């Protein structure tokens, strides 16, 4: 398929995906839905930390830095959540509910531009959540509660943040691509795939606590996840981790993203072959 045609298909898939995800209700309710989940999880974690912390720790420099670290991690975790949940259910919904998967599959681009286009909808949703969560956090913790958390949104280094976010998104889309492939061939796993993978990333990716607190063998797993380096580089752009580590973390993010891409392509090819062998492109789950 020519690149121009691929881009056209992906763009149209994005447009359709956006309509499906945003047009089901009125704009206010949609915006509320977009913000409520990430903000709720952030506030839950943050208030557990605030209430659980000792009185002596509260207000200390370390304590406030940790809260900022936590807020940025939880905010950017929205990308992970959106990509994993959105992309893992994509195949299931379009195969079962809309009965459209097989018709997309036999179009010239098969499922590739469609998955990328639809995946980018998750990215846009994720971006909205990230921005709103950061703004609300600033307003609540610094504006209302006067906690002086070192969360300087205007001071973020965009030259560091943008490459980190772009690479991180590519890595997440590659993992989402794998989940799409798995849900083509998996039976009755559609609803747990996205939750399980995003849950693993929440636990092992350094979202709410540093991975150095994990047991050694588990840390080894964290060290091969793109999410770990994505969150590290993002925090470094906010000045919440030593900036000197940025280059090596970005390089590791690039390497793990490349590995995820290669794995994604391999898994997708295998799943596609299996689906053609078993006739799964129009299979309906029996529930």
């Amino acid at each position, binding site marked *: *398929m*020519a690149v*121009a*045609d691929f881009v*056209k*298909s992906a*763009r*149209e*898939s994005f447009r*359709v995906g956006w*309509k*499906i995800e945003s*047009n*089901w209700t009125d704009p206010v309710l949609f915006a509320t839905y977009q913000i409520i989940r990430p903000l709720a999880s952030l506030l839950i974690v943050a208030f557990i930390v605030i209430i659980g912390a000792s009185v002596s720790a509260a207000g200390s420099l370390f304590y406030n830095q940790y809260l900022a670290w936590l807020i940025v991690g939880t905010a950017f975790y929205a990308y992970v959540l959106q990509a994993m949940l959105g992309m893992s259910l994509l195949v299931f919904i379009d195969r079962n509910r*809309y*009965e*459209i998967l*097989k*018709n*997309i*599959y*036999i*179009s*010239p*681009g*098969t499922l590739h*531009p*469609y998955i990328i286009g639809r995946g980018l909808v998750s990215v846009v949703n994720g971006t909205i959540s990230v921005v709103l969560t950061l703004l609300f956090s600033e307003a609540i913790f610094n504006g209302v509660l006067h906690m002086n958390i070192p969360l300087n949104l205007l001071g973020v280094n965009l030259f560091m943040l943008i490459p980190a976010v772009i690479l991180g998104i590519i890595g997440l889309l590659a993992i989402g691509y794998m989940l799409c492939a798995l849900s083509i061939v998996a039976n009755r796993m559609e609803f747990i795939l996205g939750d399980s993978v995003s849950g693993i990333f929440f636990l092992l990716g350094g979202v709410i606590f540093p991975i150095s607190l994990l047991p050694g063998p588990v840390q080894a797993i964290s060290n091969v996840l793109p999410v770990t380096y994505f969150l590290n580089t993002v925090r470094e752009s906010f000045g919440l981790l030593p900036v000197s580590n940025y280059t090596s973390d970005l390089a590791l993010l690039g390497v793990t993203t490349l590995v995820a891409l290669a794995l994604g392509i391999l898994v997708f090819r295998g799943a596609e072959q299996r689906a*053609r*062998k078993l*006739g799964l*492109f*129009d299979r309906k789950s029996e529930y």
Partner: protein
Amino acid sequence: MFLGPGLKRDLSIETKGLRRLFKGIPGKGDVVALDQVDLEVYDDEIFGLLGPNGAGKTTLIKILSTLLLPTQGEARIKGLDVVKQAPQIRRMINLVSGGETPGYGILSVKENLWFFSQLYGLPRDFAKDRITKLVDQLELQDYLNTRMAKLSTGYKQRLNLARGFVNDPALLFLDEPTLGLDVISARHLRTLVKGWIKTGGKTVLLTTHYMAEADQMCDRVGIINHGKILACDTPQRLKTKVAGGATWKIEITPNLSQPESVKSVQGVLGLSQNDNIETGITTLKLVLEDESVMSDLLSKIRDNGCKVLNMGKSEPTLEDVYISLVGTGLEE
């Protein structure tokens, strides 16, 4: 249009020894969906595939449309192998399955068609013209901006058909396209397909349950049962083959309690029975080797406790061909 043997035409579809097995119930062995299918379908032809449920029609279409791999044998579309050259094939084909309404309910008719036109990489202006033309042909103009979810079943099916034509494919697979359609929508489809095939360089592979539809639309018909192609020719030639025997229509009441006993009469090639619940009259269609079996046949009908109301010889139809080859009617 079938030119007959001897005149060389370009092949649109070719299968050789095509076989497809599916995993069966444990301990029962594999299910043979297609068994050594050899088929040739030419350019500019509407080819019909007739067969009962589970005969292998949809499996064949799924293999040819690159959705499913064959277990054995070869299948080619315009000379391209369906296993190894699927990407090239996908540019030339489209598929419409009856009884399904693929599309996003939240999107309008226009948006759904536009989405598919872009999946096929159609240039903007060409896509717009194509959609306008299809919408006119299928009389969807008034629903252009209506969400698909709000359309009636018939209009959803029309949209499904428009989607199938959107890329102006060289080869269109229509898998029971009029299933569940009202008479008017079905007529629209037939007109559309017959008009479209005349534009040249097109081929349609159609599966249907409706004999009259196959008879009216198809240049050639293949009859398939238990995964095997039993006969393949023009509807007229198939009917001529049966005309060598005798086709009879017998009205009885009540219906046959043991149809197998009638079928087993020596010289009966096939039997189908249609019950009219309102009148209580059952119409038997019989294909016989010759008329000498008639007395045995009538006595068997009486043994079933039935009274013969009316009987007469009939012109052979495609249904008679089907009955003589498969042994029963398509509805049974």
